[in-house]
């Protein structure tokens, strides 16, 4: 096994593009190293992207925020302006693993691990985040909801990797929130995750919304019907019910010992509604 830690995007792309056999991108390693120890993967090449400046920075860009793929959850937590702008994204990232894991785990890794239960992904999708990919044929932007195709399956082309994410500018009276359900309080994988981003007008009517659900389908879902169910409403009881019903209708979860299909579907509706209420509360006050 070969380990490389290039210092430029081009360097990383060159290594990945030239690799024979299984090449893996290493950011925090909280998934990859565990899988290697369990003999689930046996990469021939590991490309550590943490020395690449672009993967490690949080910067403002055209009124939005660009977050490097290898920025850790702990760093996001410490970033007050980002937390102010996108509380849902940061709280989702901060639910990954434990305090110790937070020191290593990254948004890029959480997405590219390819788990439908990844906590930060529904929040990124609800936020309308766009991933910047770099590859042998240059760079391209891809909405986060299009990056993952199914469990462990990504839309990345050979030699490509995720460099960063762009979170769009926040209009006034808009906010996001993320909630997840797990069998215990901390340090567990989501049974259901729900991210909601909302914008309201001066009268408190929802003008825009995005709703995303995790762990209820082979990939993280962007549920347009759920967003439509609340746009134009003030999130009154009827709108909440419509939202929950639309969220439940979109679910196609697995059935396992951590949660049966019916239970996941039920909880998805509850969480979507609660996340919307939190986002709404936040949106109204700014």
């Amino acid at each position, binding site marked *: 096994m070969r380990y490389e830690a290039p210092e430029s995007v081009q360097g990383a792309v060159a290594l990945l593009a030239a690799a024979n056999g299984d090449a893996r991108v290493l950011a925090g390693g909280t998934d990859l190293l565990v899988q290697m120890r369990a003999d689930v993967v046996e990469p021939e090449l590991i490309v550590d992207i943490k020395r690449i400046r672009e993967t490690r920075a949080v910067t403002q860009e055209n009124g939005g925020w660009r977050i490097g793929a290898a920025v850790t959850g702990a760093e996001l937590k410490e970033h007050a302006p980002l937390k102010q702008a996108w509380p849902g994204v940061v709280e989702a990232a901060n639910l990954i693993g434990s305090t110790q894991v937070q020191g290593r785990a990254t948004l890029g890794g959480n997405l590219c691990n390819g788990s439908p239960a990844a906590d930060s992904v529904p929040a990124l999708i609800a936020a309308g985040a766009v991933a910047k990919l770099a590859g042998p044929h240059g760079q391209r932007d891809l909405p986060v909801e299009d990056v993952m195709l199914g469990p462990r399956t990504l839309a990345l082309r050979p030699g490509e990797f995720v460099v960063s994410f762009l979170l769009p500018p926040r209009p006034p009276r808009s906010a996001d929130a993320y909630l997840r*359900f797990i069998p215990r309080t901390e340090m567990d994988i989501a049974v259901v995750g729900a991210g909601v981003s909302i914008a309201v007008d001066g009268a408190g009517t929802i003008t825009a919304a995005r709703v995303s659900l995790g762990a209820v389908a082979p990939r993280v879902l962007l549920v347009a019907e759920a967003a439509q169910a609340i746009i134009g409403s003030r999130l009154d009881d009827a709108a909440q019910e419509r939202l929950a019903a639309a969220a439940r209708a979109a679910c196609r979860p697995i059935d396992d010992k951590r949660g049966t299909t019916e*239970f996941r579907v*039920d909880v998805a509706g509850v969480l979507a509604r609660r996340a919307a209420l939190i986002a709404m509360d936040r949106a109204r006050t700014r």
Partner: protein
Amino acid sequence: MADAVATTQELRIVGQPIQRHDARDKVAAAMAYAGDFALPGMLHAFVLRSPYPSARIVKLDTQRAAAMPGVAVVLTARDVPKNTLSTDVPGQTTTVGPLRATLHVLAEDRVRHQGEPVALIAAETLEQARAATEAVDVEYAPLPSVFTTADALAPGAPAVHESGNLLAQWRIARGDVAAGFARAAVVVEGEYVTQFVDAAYLEPESGVAWIDSDGVITIRLSTQVIEHFRDVAEVLNVPQNRVRVIGTYLGGGFGGKEDVTVEVYLGLLALKTGRPVKMVWTRQESLLARAKRHPYRLKYRTGALATGEIVAQEIDLLADSGAYAYLSALVLLYSTVTAAGPYRAPNVSVVARVAYTNNPPTSAMRGFGAMQTVFGYESQMDRVARALGIDPVRVRAVNTLRRGDSLPVGQVMETHVAIPELARRAWAALGTPAAPRAPHVKVGRGLACNLQPYGRIVWLHDWSSAWIGFEMDGSLVVRCGAPDVGGGQASSLCQIASEVLGVPLDRIVVHVSDSALTPLSGTTTASRQLYMSGNAVLKAARELRAQLLTVAARLLDTDAEKLEMIDGAVHAPDARTLSLRSLLVECARASVPRSHLGVYHAPAGEPVDLNAGAGKVFPDYTFGAHAAEVEVDTETGEVRVLKYAAAHDVGRAINPQSVEGQIQGGAVQGLGYGLMEDVVVEDGINLTTSFATYLIPTAADVPDVEAIVVESGEGLGPFNARGIGEPPIGPPAAAVANAIEDATGARMTRLPITAERVARALGLVTE
């Protein structure tokens, strides 16, 4: 009962919340655990385990594995001098008659559960050992199997063992059950189901073995039972005095290190290779291979008068032993004895059975069969109270056994049963109820009490010994075979010695857990170690004190009874003092020994015929009452424990800090049992062999546990202490279930009480 020294004298050291000598090292990660030891030239060992729950071994060829790089030896059943391991009552020196249980060290022609050991490999590195394990050529032919106790006991079921699938059964009957039900104002019926759980200690099974310069096979490991040196000797076919077991301080035992773990493998490999060898189970292996807590199906039918007085109990228990007997018959005995709880049961019948299946074996775990029953009898007690509109504290007080009353098994309660006081105090400790923090949240409270035996079954004739001796400078050495599993066993012995001999704690060193160099004290199991070894140390200290004070009395020209030993000196009533050093020099001159071996024999009795229904089974019991306040999310079924109070009568707290630690740790482990822990076994395959899938509580999952320590002065241990190792794990599951019904009206009867189960009970899940 303890004598005058214990009860009339004001205690100086016993009863003080003294920081244990092992605490700082553990917190600072400086403690050397069994896996931290290494020796030059050491081999690394690995076990090949069966992937099948039930199969015939068609082919087992080790040639290719033996030829792998770095491999020192590959052993199978035919290489084991005596391939039968006794698994009945670890450390026992008397015979246990019909309870005898055995298994093969390495599988011969058949495997009966997933994870059963098939071959043993030692190599220069762990990687080489693991690689060689994969190179062992094994072919299995799957055999018919059974995975539920109901299937196992059905006619024509595949036999897990030739003796049949019913491993043991106990029946007791007292009074007239039918007449009792006829008088009852209310009859409550319930069926409860409990799950497999794992000890889940932080420190996995681990040890190092070598042949010492004296030719003795020496095994240093993490164990609750150093007496397994005898079992190792039997398997190796060497005299018992050629095997020595040294126990390290444990990173948790909870019964999981009561049966043999790595010591027989290590002994075999050291014997075969002549080289030091190390074995440390991975977390996955530990979760796969270690025996679990018995799942139970408990059926209760309870009749009570309008006053709440219980007049009839009909109880039917069925436990899953998994593929081997281990301690199942005894676990079932504990269930049988405790099935009606700490309550009067004038008309009662208990039928208890345990069956073999092809599931993972089950054996000892903290609570030992007296835990599952709490979920049964305390759920019933709560339902009786609810049906009659009686306060939960009151219904328990009405039914509590009094001194002189008998348990269903016929054992007369000889000590105080503090249940009413414990229940009252635990309940009161919850304070003002919390207001629900959201409209979808409901808050409720539950109470659960229990009794747990401490000390061995009386017909096992339990004993313990300890040696205490002075060095010439007045410092003190305590030697006692008791393994310290983390409960403060060793430091409590120091406190007892310090109290009696007036030696400051920083002048005492205790050596524990060495089968060659410390007097044998029996197992650290059954909540027996403070009771048994505490008494042995107390006895040794008192007898040594008497020896020394005879000499001191002569030097001080007074009566020995008038002398006190405080802070390293002997004090006469007229304020004259004699230093320990001078006294010891005089003892040496006068040929008076400066050390003493104390042997404590527990009150013993003859075996009780349960079917005939009369007699004493255990020396005594520890009683407890836990109260929980929970919130239930009525949209998702999530349960959160908001407040928790746990009260136990410990007789006397030798070290209140250690007692509180046992109560808090037990309560948290019991909450894990109640709310999330679940070894999921599907068709004999364990699906939860990592801490990602086997969930135990984190600090975020439990509230502060308020430990309420009640000291009745009624125990049989040193200074009237009672055992407190196991008791606190019993009540939490029932306390939480009772609180959930209080909050929502839903009665949870299956463990663990997951959010999904609550959601279903609340009708939230649409099919």
